[in-house]
């Protein structure tokens, strides 16, 4: 897969510089820490919400910095958690009397960086909390890992705590809300092609013309298993079979349904997937209350998609529907 890139080492900073140039009124860029923050942050009247994670998942997370969403994002290089001092310095810059909420997708590297960064910030007397997101049902045997990964469902946690923070919620209430959303959110992804990191210049793994990677991670890690490419509806059925029984989502539930593109799949195909998922859920008595069809958390240029369900209650639904502004896909 060919890419638009200059020196691969500058891929992330050049992207961030472009982002800042395109949104000068709302965003501020601090090159030293790959930091993208709201131009009006930190605001003393609210908790600051910060997310790190590797780059290559755009719009997550640098492009969901904005009103009712993140106050800042400090990504690492492509697929690499941010170094600890990005987390530390970002936390210092975003500190407010109400505190800083650090959102972490559940990966070894990210957790270490945020744990270490938080320790240092706490030693400075700052008020911080970490909230871990782990919505990926693809990881079955959590004995051998740090547990389930945080993937596209992350958006719902950001959206909910972002809305609540905007309304003045306290740090402990944000933790409660974030945990609650994470607890009712499940995701499963499928890759049709491998992605190509700019610095590597070639696909991360080989996938035959009739193979798909079922349960693929958002870092191009191979997934649960390799399967034969089938038609789109059968793929949706397989994703639902992994996601629905996991919580489980049951007849009578109201859900948010997200079909998230992994970077190389056009939105036309995402809506085609959405159609079947919506219909199949209806057959199971599960009603879609809110729909999300777009790219939210990608894996560079990988062709593929993930399916996320969130079980809604009135509080979550209200927070998801609250106003938000971001460079892309605020809803």
């Amino acid at each position, binding site marked *: 897969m060919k890419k638009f890139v200059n020196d691969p*080492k500058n891929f992330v900073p050049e992207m961030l510089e472009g982002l800042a140039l395109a949104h000068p009124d709302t965003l501020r860029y601090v090159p030293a820490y790959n930091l993208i923050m709201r131009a009006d942050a930190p605001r003393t009247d609210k908790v600051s919400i910060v997310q790190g994670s*590797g780059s290559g998942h755009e719009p997550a997370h640098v492009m969901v910095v904005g009103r009712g969403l993140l106050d800042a994002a400090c990504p*690492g*290089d*492509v*697929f*690499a*958690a*941010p*170094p*600890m*001092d990005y987390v*530390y310095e970002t936390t210092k810059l975003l500190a407010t009397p109400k505190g800083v909420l650090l959102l972490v997708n559940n*990966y*070894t*590297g990210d957790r*270490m*960086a945020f744990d*270490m960064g938080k320790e240092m910030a706490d030693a400075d007397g700052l008020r911080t909390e970490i909230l871990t997101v782990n919505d990926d049902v*693809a*990881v*079955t*045997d959590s004995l*051998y*890992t*740090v547990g389930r*990964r945080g993937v596209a469902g992350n958006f719902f946690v950001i959206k909910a705590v972002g809305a609540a923070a905007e309304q003045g919620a306290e740090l402990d209430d944000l933790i409660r809300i974030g945990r609650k959303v994470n607890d009712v959110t499940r995701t499963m992804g499928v890759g049709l092609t491998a992605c190509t*990191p700019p*610095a*590597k210049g070639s696909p*991360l*793994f080989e996938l035959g013309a009739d193979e798909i990677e079922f349960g693929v*991670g958002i*870092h*191009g*890690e*191979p*997934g649960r298993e390799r399967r034969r490419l089938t038609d789109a509806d059968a793929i949706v059925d397989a994703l639902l079979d992994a996601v629905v029984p996991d919580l489980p989502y049951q007849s009578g539930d109201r859900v948010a349904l997200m079909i998230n593109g992994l970077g190389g799949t056009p939105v036309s195909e995402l809506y085609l997937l959405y159609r079947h998922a919506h219909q199949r859920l209806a057959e199971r008595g599960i009603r879609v209350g809110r729909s999300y069809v777009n790219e939210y958390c990608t894996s560079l240029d990988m062709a593929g998609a993930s399916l996320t369900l969130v079980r809604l209650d009135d509080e979550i639904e209200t927070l998801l529907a609250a106003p938000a502004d971001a460079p892309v896909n605020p809803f």
Partner: protein
Amino acid sequence: MNGTELVVRTIAETAIANEKYFGDLDSVVGDGDFGYSLARGFEKLLDGWADLDRTNAGSFLKRCGMTIASRIGGTSGPIWGTAFLRAGAAAGEPLDRARVAAMLRAAIDGIKARGQSDVGDKTLLDALVPFTDSLEKSGDLATAARAAREAAEATSAMVAKRGRAAYTGERSRGSVDAGAMAVAVIAERISDVWQPEVTGS
């Protein structure tokens, strides 16, 4: 101090020279960024090389550890940074075989604590521990480097229980761990360039 400097510089240069190789190893069941992360981080260490605190081996290693931990992203920053920090804390005079072994043991303990990992999880520990065992026993770097390579190659038969490769479960069998192989390659380079007076004692 000259020995310590040489060793750290060799680690840095080896990591930079093997960026592509280490990255390719990490892309088999990982996410392919290991080579890039190490190379970029150690480049930054070399950038500030002249200004590093050289009071003694301990403070030098701790300064390196801080730089690595705060400049390398991914899992490797905290893991390698912690290793250098702990080795620095265990440094002292004379820098003899026992001391070097103690420093390596401190680094290993730091990695285990930071990574919640142990020997057998298919990580760099699976090369670093055999390397340390062999160095302690033989006092010979070349022998220890051979032990590291053998152990790194043996990770191919293991199933990953930590790090990103662990998500693939059984499918992680059949390829060597990138971190373990990096330890082996670095050990070989150190053994090539460093003829310490101390290790014989």
